[in-house]
């Protein structure tokens, strides 16, 4: 009976090898799949069980975690939730993450490679894993002013530091409060999210950087002007500016705002055309320059390139292979030209920064729980959008717009402000969007920004100059105040 007993031992060994193989399959080989299975609440609990790092504005946490008594251990808390939602995003047990909560998740949760040594230290000291703090470039008061100015109108404001590309303000309206989505009551979260999703004005969309991009309207004339200056035009070069311009190959015509004539004799300088935002002059200029020139210049300002700031930014679009009349329409920022408010702020910033476009960024510094700096964003040149000489000319032209043209509402006494209005048609029956892009002080700007107020009809004025410019003015004033106090 010894021989079969020996054989039985071998069979037992094989049975155990099968068990060990299965355990290896589950715990190592197939573990990633199992851990990522949406039904696996453990991954969720473990992530939520960590002490997540805060999101910081102006040196103070605006998003942080507090201990809670339930299975999740921590509750995500948002101070001024609606104000910073455009940057922070939400952190939900049901719907996952968005915004910085999503893009900086590895750092906030403490799982990033950069935090390896911190984790190792925690392991030995027995302390719980802690996430890093993400310090944003936002200025709280600027964000506040921009949001107050927009009020309950739909639109967006983006303010940049032209020299570095740091995003000083990023406001989208309407907004939402991430606090409700961070609740640990699943039912509550579900109904709140469904409600937000069902709303027609789309509060979950970050209009500043994504969603449906906007036709830039007359603010696009800045790009056309830059292209003209590069092509050898000067601010004084006379342009053809009829009361109505026939669109080649169609029966349609382009007119000016209110159907007015730009100039008595049908001719005006480039500078004046920009100052009063003359449509016929720019449409003709665009056709004269040719699409290739315009396209290249627009790309030099960032069109066509998606960005990660680190939030994903929708690429601003240009029409493909437009015909003559479409080029004419595109030259005044209509037809298939689309831009995010961030893109338009980048145009202003590049012009203000002597033609150099800096890569926009939202995260300034990331700090480990022990306050050691893990990473700091170094300002980076994204493009040389135009030459210094050309940008000087364009700056002067934009100063004229504010001091003496369509953008007077943005004028600030004692400071030279450079700006450009825009009133973008969105369709025959829908009211236009009001734009304003600007920077100040014109000589050495501390802030460059873009404002858009959606479908502005029915409101007083309803042009970029009357509606968006005052918002820009308030934001610029706050930026100048901060700068004077040395906070910018």
């Amino acid at each position: 009976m010894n021989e079969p007993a020996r054989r039985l031992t071998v069979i037992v060994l094989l049975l155990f090898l099968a068990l060990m193989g299965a355990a290896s399959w589950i715990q190592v080989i197939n573990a990633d799949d199992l851990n990522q299975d949406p039904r696996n609440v453990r991954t969720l609990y473990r992530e939520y069980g960590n002490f997540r790092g805060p999101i910081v504005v102006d040196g103070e946490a605006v998003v942080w975690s507090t201990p809670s008594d339930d299975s999740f251990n921590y509750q995500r808390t948002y101070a001024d939730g609606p104000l910073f939602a455009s940057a922070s995003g939400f952190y939900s047990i049901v719907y996952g993450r968005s915004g910085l909560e999503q893009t900086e998740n590895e750092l906030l949760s403490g799982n990033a490679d950069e935090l390896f040594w911190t984790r190792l230290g925690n392991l030995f000291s027995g302390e719980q894993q802690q996430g890093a703090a993400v310090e944003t470039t936002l200025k709280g008061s600027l964000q506040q002013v921009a949001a107050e100015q927009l009020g309950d109108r739909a639109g967006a404001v983006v303010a940049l530091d032209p020299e570095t590309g740091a995003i000083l303000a990023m406001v989208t309206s309407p907004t939402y409060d991430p606090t409700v989505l961070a609740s640990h009551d699943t039912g509550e979260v579900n109904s709140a999210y469904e409600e937000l999703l069902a709303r027609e004005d789309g509060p979950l969309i970050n209009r500043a950087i994504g969603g449906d991009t906007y036709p830039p309207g007359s603010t696009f004339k800045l790009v056309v002007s830059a292209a003209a200056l590069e092509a050898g035009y000067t601010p004084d070069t006379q342009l053809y500016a009829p009361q109505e311009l026939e669109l080649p190959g169609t029966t349609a015509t382009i007119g000016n705002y209110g159907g007015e004539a730009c100039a008595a004799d049908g001719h005006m300088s480039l500078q004046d055309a920009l100052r009063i935002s003359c449509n016929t002059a720019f449409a003709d200029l665009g056709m004269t320059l040719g699409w290739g020139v315009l396209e290249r210049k627009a790309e030099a300002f960032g069109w066509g390139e998606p960005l990660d700031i680190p939030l994903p930014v929708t690429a601003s679009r240009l029409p493909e292979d437009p015909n003559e009349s479409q080029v004419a329409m595109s030259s005044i920022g209509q037809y298939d030209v689309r831009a995010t408010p961030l893109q338009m702020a980048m145009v202003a910033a590049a012009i203000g920064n002597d033609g150099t476009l800096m890569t926009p960024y939202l995260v300034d510094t990331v700090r480990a729980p022990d306050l050691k700096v893990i990473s700091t964003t170094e300002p980076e040149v994204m493009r040389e959008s135009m030459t210094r000489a050309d940008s000087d000319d364009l700056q002067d032209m934009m100063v004229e717009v504010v001091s003496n043209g369509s953008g007077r509402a943005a004028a600030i006494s004692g400071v030279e402000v450079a700006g450009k209005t825009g009133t973008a048609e969105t369709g025959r029956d829908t009211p236009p969007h009001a734009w304003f892009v600007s920077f100040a002080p014109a000589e050495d700007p501390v802030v460059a920004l873009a404002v858009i107020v959606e479908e502005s009809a029915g409101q007083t004025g309803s042009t970029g100059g009357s509606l968006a410019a005052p918002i820009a003015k308030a934001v610029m004033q706050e930026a100048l105040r901060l700068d004077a106090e040395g906070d910018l």
Partner: protein
Amino acid sequence: MATVAELEVRAGRRAELGLLTVAWSIIVLSRALVDYHADFLVLSTLGWYALGAAVLMVACHIILRRYAPQADPVLLPAVFALNGVGLAMIRRIDFAYAQYRGRDTDFGTAQIGWSIAGVVLAMVVILIIRDHRKLRRFTYTAGIVGLVLYLLPLVPGLGVEINGARIWISVLGRSLQPGEFAKIAMVVFFAGYLVTNRDTLALAGPKFLGLRFPRPRDMGPLLVVWAAALLLMVYERDLGASLLFFGIFLGMLYVATQRISWVITGLALFAVGAVAAGVIFPHVRARYDGWLHALDPEVYSSGTSYQLVGGLFGMASGGLFGTGLGEGRPDLVPYAESDFIIASLGEELGLTGLMAILALYLIIVQRAFRMSIGVRDGFGKLLAAGLGFALALQVFIVVGGVTRVIPLTGLTTPWLAYGGSSMLANWIVVGLLLRISDQARRSSQEVGP
């Protein structure tokens, strides 16, 4: 008659003492870790725990020195280590239930009581049964006792159905799993029966495909056991016990007769029974579905594979090295302290911990087979092999169920899982194995008549 060269076998009691010290460290350290992570570390309590374990171990050691001096030195430390890891894990799960579920359980303390009772019972076995061959006298008594124990849960008023399986009986307000004890009785019965009838079963029979198959008239016992196994499966809804019961018989039949044809016949019969049960009985089919299509959303959402998949998720989150004791979420799996303790251990101790546990079992089983080879009487050989194989098969069925090697069944993990019956029964097995090993390792002169 051939002369047998006498091998000087070292008693190994000193080695055992050394190994017991290692097991003691595992027992005390694992509990200390659990308490520390739960912020519940009270040094005096831990001290009593450590002292209690030490006293128990030293008592065992002294009893073995005096009453079974040649007993296997590895068995006892290995079982103590497993038991200690189980105690720590169950206590850990108590804490997890309290922390996350608001459940006030004290499985850990109850299990300490069962463990002590188990160790005492093992020693009683050693003291009472001075020679395992005496058990052969009780062959048929054991057979009847085993059958009765298996069938007890079916008695109306006595049997209790828990979670769809009718394998418990209620005695004085406590629920017992008589099947755990029946297992031992059946091994004793099979050993006695087979050692008497092995010649008939082994030699006669027609040849087919080069294998000598049993004569139909000798098939009686096999068919009876097969029928009993099916009965278990159908009426008590206990797939695990049924598989274990039949598997033990087949394994022992093979050891007794050395004929693979018996195993083939038996496996074929079992396959027929298992497939038929799957076709006929919905609860069996549900088990199969939950096993084959565990991750299928439909099966999962019907709840059939919820526990199994929960265990898989837990083990996956443990990965190679585990989350660490006190850092996982074993409470997310139903019955984390009993049926799914392997998944809980896999989660918190990782694949490394699980491998170590399986290796401990393998050592214990391998020691049992070594006794079987070493002991001189046929009954002892069959008894040791049967007990060892029963243990191996039980571990395979329960761990295989949790790791999706075979369909999930409701067996307990020996010495690890929470549960009194299982703890007592498996310590009795330890006592029996120690007794047999004492005989196996003695030189023939010393063996009494």
